[in-house]
C-alpha cells in the first residue's frame, strides 16, 4: 500500500498528490512514470512522476479526472492509500546542457513537462516555457514552472490570460524575435503535440514529445502501448515514453487512444450511478 501524504485540487478536475513510495523516489528520473492500480478491482493506469523527494521517500502525481479510475483516485483522502504502484518506468529524458530549450506544455501534460524543465534548468540551460490552455484556470503549475524558467509565456484560447491563441503561435513568436532554440519538448493533449511537433520541424528545432498510449503492465510485456515512430513499431512503456515528435505516426496514435471509448463510458456511468454526486470534482 502506498499512502497519500498530501492532496490538493489545483484546477477543476485536476489533483496534485504526494505519495509514500521510497523505492520509486530513490530511483526516479525526469521523464519517467509509474503504473497505479488504486484498488482490488481497479485497472492499471500510467501517470507521470511529476516530482520526487528522495529524502522523504515520496513521489508526486498530478492527474486529470477523465474517467472511472482517475475519479476514484480523486475521491481518496490524505492518509488513505493506493493499493499498487510500480515504477519508475520508461526511459528517462535525455537532459544535458543544450543551450536554449523551448518547453511547451498543455493541459495535464504540464505535469509531465515540469520535472524535465526543472532538470534542464539545473543543468544550465536557458529555459523558455510556453504553457497553454483553453482558459486561465486550466493552466496549471504556473508558479513552479516560472521558478525554473528564464521566461514563461502563457497562451489561452479565450485570451483570459497571457497571449490569446495557441502554443504554436507562441513558439513561432519566440523564434521570430530572434531566439536560437536548440531543443524543444512538447507535452500535452495529442493534438497539441502533433501541431507543436509540426511547428518545431518548420522552425528547424529538434522536438521531443511524451506519448501516452493505453498501457497495462508498463514493462514491455503486453505490447498494448505500441506506437509507430519512424515507420517502426515501438513499445512506448520501455522504448519511450519520449520520442522524436517529427517521426510519430499521429493519426494512428490518436486512433489507438480511442479503442475503449464505449467500455470507458460504461465504466464511468456505472461508477457515477454508484457514488451519486460528482459535481465536487
Amino acid at each position: 500500500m502506498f499512502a497519500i501524504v498530501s492532496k490538493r485540487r489545483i484546477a477543476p478536475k485536476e489533483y496534485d498528490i504526494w505519495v509514500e513510495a521510497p523505492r520509486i523516489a530513490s530511483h526516479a528520473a525526469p521523464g519517467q512514470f509509474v503504473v497505479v492500480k488504486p484498488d482490488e478491482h481497479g485497472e492499471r493506469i500510467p501517470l507521470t512522476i511529476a516530482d520526487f523527494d528522495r529524502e522523504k521517500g515520496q513521489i508526486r502525481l498530478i492527474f486529470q479526472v477523465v474517467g472511472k479510475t482517475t475519479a476514484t483516485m480523486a475521491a481518496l483522502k490524505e492518509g488513505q492509500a493506493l493499493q499498487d504502484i510500480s515504477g519508475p518506468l520508461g526511459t528517462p529524458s535525455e537532459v544535458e546542457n543544450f543551450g536554449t530549450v523551448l518547453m511547451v506544455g498543455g493541459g495535464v501534460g504540464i505535469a509531465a513537462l515540469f520535472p524535465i524543465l526543472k532538470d534542464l534548468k539545473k543543468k544550465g540551460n536557458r529555459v523558455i516555457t510556453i504553457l497553454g490552455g483553453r482558459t486561465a484556470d486550466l493552466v496549471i503549475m504556473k508558479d513552479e514552472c516560472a521558478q525554473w524558467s528564464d521566461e514563461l509565456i502563457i497562451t489561452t484560447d479565450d485570451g483570459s490570460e497571457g497571449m490569446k491563441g495557441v502554443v504554436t503561435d507562441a513558439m513561432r513568436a519566440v523564434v521570430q524575435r530572434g531566439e536560437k532554440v536548440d531543443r524543444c519538448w512538447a507535452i500535452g493533449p495529442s493534438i497539441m503535440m502533433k501541431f507543436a511537433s509540426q511547428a518545431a520541424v518548420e522552425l528547424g528545432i529538434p522536438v521531443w514529445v511524451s506519448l501516452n498510449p493505453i498501457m497495462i503492465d508498463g514493462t514491455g510485456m503486453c505490447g498494448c502501448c505500441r506506437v509507430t515512430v519512424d515507420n517502426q513499431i515501438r513499445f512506448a512503456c520501455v522504448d519511450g515514453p519520449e520520442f522524436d515528435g517529427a517521426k510519430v505516426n499521429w493519426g494512428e496514435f490518436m486512433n489507438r487512444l480511442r479503442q475503449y471509448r464505449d467500455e470507458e463510458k460504461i465504466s464511468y456511468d456505472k461508477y457515477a450511478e454508484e457514488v451519486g454526486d460528482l459535481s465536487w470534482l
Partner: protein
Amino acid sequence: MAPKQKTPIAEQDPKERCHNFKEVCLGYTLEEGIAEAKRCLQCKTAPCVKGCPVSIDIPGFIKAVAEGDMPKAAEIMGQYTNLPAVCGRVCPQESQCEGVCTLGKVPGFEPVAIGKLERLVADWKYEHTSDAKPQLPGEKKGRVAVIGSGPAGLTVAGDLAKKGYEVVIYEALHAAGGVLMYGIPEFRLPKSIVQKEIQAMKDLGVQVETNVVVGKTLTMQEILAQFDAAYIAVGAGTPHFQGVPGTTLNGVYSASEYLTRINLMHAYEFPGYDTPTKRSKRVVVVGGGNVAMDAARSAKRLGAEEVQVVYRRSLKELPARIEEYHHAVEEGIVFNWLTNPVEYMNDGNGQLCGVKCIRMELGEPDASGRRRPVAVEGSEFVIEADTAIEAIGQGSNKVLLSTFPELNLNKWGYIVADEKTGATSVPGVYAGGDIVTGAATVILAMGAGKDAAVAMDEYITKKRASA
C-alpha cells in the same frame, strides 16, 4: 490385465463451458483415481520417471493412490515438486511422462493418466492439510533474492527456504505467479490454485514483494550488495509481432495483451473489474501453441460468434498440448491449417475488418527439422474479423537485462546459464526458466529452479565457510 482406456474424467459440457471461465476438467473422484492408479503396471524400469523433467517417483505415488493412502501419495510427490496442482493440470504429459508409459506402448492401450492422478493428489492435499505451518530450520544459512515469481522463481524460493535460507521474491506485477497468473486462463488453471501454491511458499517463510521491477525499482547492484546470491527468473516476457501491415490497427492484439487483460486484470468480469476488453464477434487467432489455444478459447468464452485459428503448418506440427486442441475443437474453434496472415485490413476508420491470409505448403525441412511452410502464390483470401490476436511467440524482456550488462546473453538475447546449475557469467547470480531457454514449459522452469536451489546452497555454504 488393466482396462485399455484411461478411466474417464468428468468435464464441463462443451456447450456450457464455452460461455464460462470455470475449469473445464473437473478432476477424478477418489474412487475413480484409485481405479486409474490400479492400471499402472508398477514397472521396475519406470520409464515414466525418466520422462518427467523433475523425476517424480511416479510408480511410488501411484501405488499409494491405488492403496487409497493419499497422505503417503502427497508425501512422496512433495519430495519432487512444489507445484503439483499446477503441473498436473498444464504439463504436456503426452510428450513427457505419459508419452513413454509402458502401458501406453501396448497396442490398443492408453497410458496411465499420470497428470490427472498428480492433480488428484495435489487437490486432495489442499483440502486435507491442516493449517499448521511447516517446521523450519531456526538459524538462517544465508539470504537469497529471487527475481520473478513464475514457476522457476517460486520453485527455487521454496526449495531454498526449506534448506534454511531467508528468501525474498521480487515481482514486477501486482500479483505473484508469472504466466500462471497472467497467461494461462482460469478455465485451465484456476487462479485460486495458483494462490494456494504461492501461499504454500509463503508458509515456508518466503517473502513476496510485488510491484518491484528489478532494474527500475531496485537495481541488480543493490540486490547483490544485500544478498548472498540471486536467481533471475523473469520469463520470456515480450511479445513478438509478425509485422504485417495493419499491426497497429484497433482490434489487433498480441496474445499477451489479450490474455493479461482477461486473466490478470479480470476483464471477463468487466465492468465489475475496471479493465475492459472487447466483446468481439469474429476473431482470428494467429499461431498454433498453447498460447494460441488459450486466446481462441477465451475469445469464445467472451461471446465471439466465430473464432478461427490460422496456423502456417499442419495439425501434425501443432505445438499446443493435444488435449487443449481437442478441447478447442469441441468448443467450436475453427482451424485453418497451412495458412498465414499477410495483412490486417482497415475498415477506413482505423478498426480491423478482416485478415488477409495466404495458403502455405510444406517445403524442405528447416534448421528445426520441421518442414518449412512456403506461401502459395496467388492464394490470398480474406477472413472477416473485428479482432485478430497474434500468438506467435515471445522474446526476452530487456528491462532487467539492459541494466545488468555483466550478464552474458546468447544470440537470441536469453541469459547464458549452466544447464545443470543455472550459474551465469556473474558469480553468485543464477538464472533459469524461460529467460534462459526461451518460451518453454512450466515443468522445465520448475526443474531449472530445483537444480539451481541445490547449486546455490552449495555456493553460499562454500562462500560463507571461506569468509
